């Protein structure tokens, strides 16, 4: 092995994704070659992980046997200066400004890169001044609902009851999303600072971060960070709580029940969590990305944040490009970039090299969009107008080998598996949806069953159902779920189902255009 590694500092991520791709073995190989290895956050260029940075130059994806060539200067895995890579250079990184640059649990690194400036500013401004900055920024809830953060904070601040709580929703269960995980693993002090600012603004003394159990690395980092940050945020305290594998706990009222030690069943609203939340007390429930955006907003001013963005969607969104895509990763940019740019230009099309057929935007409850929707600007209102949603801003790309009726069936199956059971449209509708989709996929149609045929069941249909009848039944069921469910799990499952049916009717054997398309 060459001794060219002497005195060289190599920076490699210790983010869960880098670890899953073998970063520890690569780091060990650099150390064995005499290098000093610094474990930093991930740049978010996932196809290049494990990515090593030496004097600003990037090399990836590396395996241990590549280390000698990298140090000898003969590696063909160099990508040039990382910061000038088009994937990085074309972003507007506010929340992920430190990504790739700092050691996640180093308070020194955090302070040296602008950490705690937002909290210091908030303390100068006072609670009302702090909320005014967030109001001016136009920050909307990044968990998916897009509710203005400052309005929620104002409600909690004005609530008479005490104590008040800050709850960070880190139950990032949507497939195609990983930005919350990257914040917690790469820049945990930023999230804690955001929570401390929120606490200062509304008068809360205690904060909880509710992290899904599938994220053990994020849990460990957040626990360490909450302990280390204590002197900076006192008297406010942050405690990490761990979920237990229930997707529905990403819904805020279900999350609150889970935090209280109950089944993660959804609560009816009202009362709003802002007034009667955790243990019945006024509670700010915000997503990781919402709270993580706050330190930047306070440090740079709400107006600077609102300068970026599109329409009523202000600021930046950390977009997660995933699935069958060539250049997957974390892409933070102001709202307004088109879906096509994200998939075809930034993402480079599919990893398989086949044409893109569908992109699911916003996780398991988001719509499937065909390439015909690639003109859509990425913002809350544009996607809502196209019968979709941006949700937590995850994009899952599929190539032309996908069977969209299978994806629709999966959406119903997922809802059935994860339904909390509280409301009927979700609990039963999802199972009935799987059954209807199975019949549609089998192109079978069906005769009235034994119970339906009974004369006593006089409302039941007696005639056999054709395939078109089954499709109409599915649409009807989706309508019931959409308008009758208590929360977004049952209420939004129709998005992937109906969008698949509407945009890809050929996969359902439809002989007439889906009715939604005719509206």
């Amino acid at each position, binding site marked *: 092995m060459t001794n060219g590694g002497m005195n060289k500092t190599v920076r490699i991520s210790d983010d869960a994704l880098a670890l*899953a791709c073998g970063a520890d073995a690569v780091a060990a190989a650099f150390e064995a070659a005499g290098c000093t290895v610094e474990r930093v956050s991930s740049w978010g260029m996932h196809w290049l992980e494990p990515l090593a940075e030496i004097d600003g130059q990037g090399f990836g994806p590396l395996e241990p046997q590549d280390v000698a060539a990298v140090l000898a200067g003969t590696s063909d895995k160099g990508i040039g200066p990382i910061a000038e890579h088009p994937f990085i250079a074309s972003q507007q990184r506010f929340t992920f400004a430190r990504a790739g640059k700092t050691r996640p649990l180093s308070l020194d690194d955090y302070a040296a890169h602008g950490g705690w400036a937002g909290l210091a500013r908030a303390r100068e401004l006072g609670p009302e001044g702090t909320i005014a900055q967030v109001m001016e920024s136009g920050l909307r809830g990044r968990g998916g609902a897009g509710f203005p953060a400052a309005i929620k904070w104002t409600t909690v601040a004005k609530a008479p009851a005490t104590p008040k709580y800050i709850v960070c929703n880190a139950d990032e269960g949507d497939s195609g999303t990983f930005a919350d995980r990257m914040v917690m693993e790469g820049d945990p002090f930023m999230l804690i600072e955001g929570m401390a600012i929120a606490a200062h603004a509304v008068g809360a003394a205690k904060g909880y971060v509710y992290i899904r159990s*599938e994220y053990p690395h994020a849990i460990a980092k957040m626990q360490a960070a909450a302990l280390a940050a204590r002197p900076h945020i006192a008297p406010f305290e942050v405690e990490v709580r761990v979920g237990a594998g229930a997707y529905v706990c990403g819904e805020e009222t279900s999350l609150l029940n889970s935090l209280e030690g109950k089944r993660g069943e959804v609560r009816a609203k009202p009362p709003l969590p802002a007034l009667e939340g955790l243990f019945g007390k006024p509670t700010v429930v915000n997503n990781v990305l919402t709270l993580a955006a706050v330190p930047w907003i306070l440090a740079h001013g709400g107006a600077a944040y609102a300068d970026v963005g599109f329409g009523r969607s202000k600021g930046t969104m950390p977009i997660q490009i995933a699935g069958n895509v060539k250049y997957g990763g974390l892409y933070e940019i102001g709202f307004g970039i088109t879906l096509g740019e994200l998939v075809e230009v930034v993402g480079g099309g599919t990893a398989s090299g086949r044409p893109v057929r569908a992109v699911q935007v916003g996780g398991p409850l988001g719509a499937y969009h065909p390439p015909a929707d690639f003109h859509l600007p990425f913002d809350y209102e544009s996607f809502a107008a196209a019968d979709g949603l941006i949700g937590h801003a995850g994009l899952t790309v599929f190539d032309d080998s996908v069977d969209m009726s299978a994806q629709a069936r999966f959406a119903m199956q997922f809802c059935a598996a994860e339904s909390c059971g509280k409301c009927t449209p979700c609990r039963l509708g999802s199972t009935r949806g799987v059954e209807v989709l199975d019949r549609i996929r089998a192109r079978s149609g069906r005769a009235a069953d034994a119970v339906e045929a009974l004369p006593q069941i006089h409302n039941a249909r007696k005639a056999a159902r054709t395939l078109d009848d089954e499709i109409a039944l599915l649409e009807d069921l989706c309508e019931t779920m959409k308008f009758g469910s208590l929360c977004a799990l049952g209420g939004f499952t129709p998005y992937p189902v109906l969008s698949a049916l509407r945009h890809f009717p050929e996969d359902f054997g439809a002989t007439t255009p889906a009715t939604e398309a005719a509206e």
Partner: protein
Amino acid sequence: MTDPAELDRILAAHATREGSLLPILHDVQAAFGHVSEAAERAIAQALNLSRAEVHGVVSFYHDFRVAPEPRPVVKLCRAESCQARGVEALAARLPADGPVKVETVYCLGLCSVGPNAMVGDTLHARLTPEKLGALVGGLA
């Protein structure tokens, strides 16, 4: 078996926490591999709940087991992003009753480098038939 002394130690450690049931259940499962009926009774007693309430929580969450799993567990992600990257073709080749228990998990947050799996706290990305086969003791 659920050791009563260890159970008491866990309950005491969480005595002053608000909403302590989930942290307790996590610790019990970590210590004993499952949440036994005896553990449910002791937890219910300590928290002034009925056993039905405790069991209702245990059975609600996918993570908690009511019986020990003797085999090693591999959690294979079968959510949309891993589907888009071919996990179903891998899953179709899983042995029906192999030496390893394969559980489905919906999303490990590594959606750009799937298919993915987790064994304990160790993550595995970019799974090929060879890599998954090594984790589960061979594919069909």
